[in-house]
């Protein structure tokens, strides 16, 4: 039972790790907090499901990623060409995607893939009769995470990748290298949202269903995972930090699975992730303020 729970946690952790990697790109590298993540995650799931139900499981992944690219492009367009604040651009696109997603599902708020051929069912058939046949979901997720991780790390080392990282660091420096920061922001957001959509697509296919709320709260969960990963690997190179992000996603799901074992109701997941994110973001600030508080207290006592 416990082992089963751990395996599910590992699977979910790996599938969400793709979204964590997406935020690693947009939040950590590009320094843009992309709040369209929830909608984009569902978008990927919906597009993937629709294409898979139409009978193209392989194509469904590409279609989901293409949809993610489009969504990221709109967010980038609002930021770079229309002067919107990056947070607002994300929120606006996120809201709009809700309607788009329902429209794509033909007005329904749920799609069932019980009898649909998916990437997962393909791997299941492939492993039929081997010792690994029970682990087909875990293995599929693992393969995709490794692929995404390798692609992302190779990409970040290219000249374009460097320019994207520099955009988050010092946009003026990017301009001085005669690169347009609007361009790098756009490419970064498109790539990041492609990963988010792929993540959503895979999660939906592994659960054999997609509903409109699949992605809600995803941005907080992925941020929590990213921040846990950041605490694990605070120093070190790009590879270590990206691996930390993946590990963070898995650890988050394991903690959550344990909490479920201790009879925490499932609906608490989002509160837990909120608390983790808030704590991770607040702690560095609180740590800087602590000496001041201590001094102030000592000061007050001295006076009294």
């Amino acid at each position: 039972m416990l082992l089963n729970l751990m395996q599910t946690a590992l699977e979910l952790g790996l599938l969400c790790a793709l979204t964590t990697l997406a935020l690693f790109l947009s939040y950590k590298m590009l320094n843009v907090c992309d709040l369209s993540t929830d909608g984009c995650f569902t978008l990927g799931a919906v597009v993937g499901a629709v294409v898979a139900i139409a009978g193209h499981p392989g194509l469904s992944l590409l279609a989901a990623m293409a949809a993610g690219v489009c969504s990221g492009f709109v967010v980038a367009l609002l930021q770079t060409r229309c002067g919107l604040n990056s947070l607002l651009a994300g929120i606006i696109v996120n809201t709009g995607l809700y309607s788009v997603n329902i429209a794509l599902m033909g007005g329904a708020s749920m799609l069932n893939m019980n009898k649909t051929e998916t990437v997962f069912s393909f791997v299941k058939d492939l492993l039929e009769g081997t010792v690994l046949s029970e682990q087909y979901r875990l293995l599929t997720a693992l393969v995709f995470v490794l692929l995404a991780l390798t692609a992302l790390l190779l990409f970040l080392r290219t000249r374009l990748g460097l320019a994207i990282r520099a955009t988050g660091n010092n946009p003026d420096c990017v301009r001085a290298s005669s690169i347009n920061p609007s361009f790098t922001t756009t490419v970064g957001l498109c790539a990041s949202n492609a990963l988010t959509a792929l993540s959503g697509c895979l999660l939906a296919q592994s659960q054999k269903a997609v509903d409109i709320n699949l992605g809600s709260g995803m941005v907080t969960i992925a941020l929590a995972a990213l921040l846990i990963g950041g605490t694990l690997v605070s120093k070190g190179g790009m590879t270590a930090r990206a691996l930390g992000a993946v590990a963070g996603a898995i650890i988050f799901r394991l903690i959550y699975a344990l909490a479920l074992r201790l009879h925490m109701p499932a609906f608490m997941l989002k509160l837990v992730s909120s608390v983790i994110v808030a704590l991770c973001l607040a702690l560095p600030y609180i740590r800087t303020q602590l000496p001041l508080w201590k001094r102030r207290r000592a000061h007050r006592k001295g006076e009294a």
Partner: protein
Amino acid sequence: MLKLEHISKTFNSGTQNEKCALSDFSLSVEAGEYVTIIGANGAGKSTLFNAIAGSFFTDSGKITLDGKDITFAPAHERAREIGRIFQDPMLGTCPGMSIEENLAMAAKRGGWFSHITRADREFFREKLRALDMGLENRLDAQVGLLSGGQRQALTLLMATIVPPRLLLLDEHTAALDPGTAEKVLSLTETVIRENRLTCLMITHNMQSALDLGSRTLMLHQGGILMDVSGEERKGMGVSDLLERFRALSGAALDNDRMLLG
């Protein structure tokens, strides 16, 4: 080479804080010229550089570089021909990236998807060795961990690794300690000489304004108050500059940041 024709720029137009930073400003710089620029705070020195580099578009007038109209070219396009170094060493480099990554971005070698090759590294190492700051063996070091002088020297290298047509130096040694400032300045001189760059340099040091370069401009209230070069400039001292300023502007040169010596 660089030509500014009747450039104007007013900030906060229509409000109480309206400030005319450049008014009907015209300037022509020949290829290979090295112009030093002095002037009190608010004289329009940095505004002039911002206008040339494209940090904003001017309200009126025309800017041409090598005969090409760049009046409305965005900053990143102008950066192909114009290199710029600021006073603040933090502005020219990316702190979160390594030395070689910073250089790779500036060097523009290879396509968008090319990686840093061994040949690139060797090239960077050779360039860094010329700086004589001990950076050649620290290609993987985070730029954020370097000292101000090291960062400014790296910025100089980044701005000139692909030699620009025009180099803008905005008091680029003012934030460094005297020894480092001297070193960065001599590096700058070498780079300008070797690449035969056209250069504009803002300085608050009146003596070096006369010692360096081939022409000196004094700005005042968004215009050129004085423009000396050639024989006339050779015989000038700091006291002559001050006197000329007083005679032309009808006021004493009053600036707490201006170094007279």
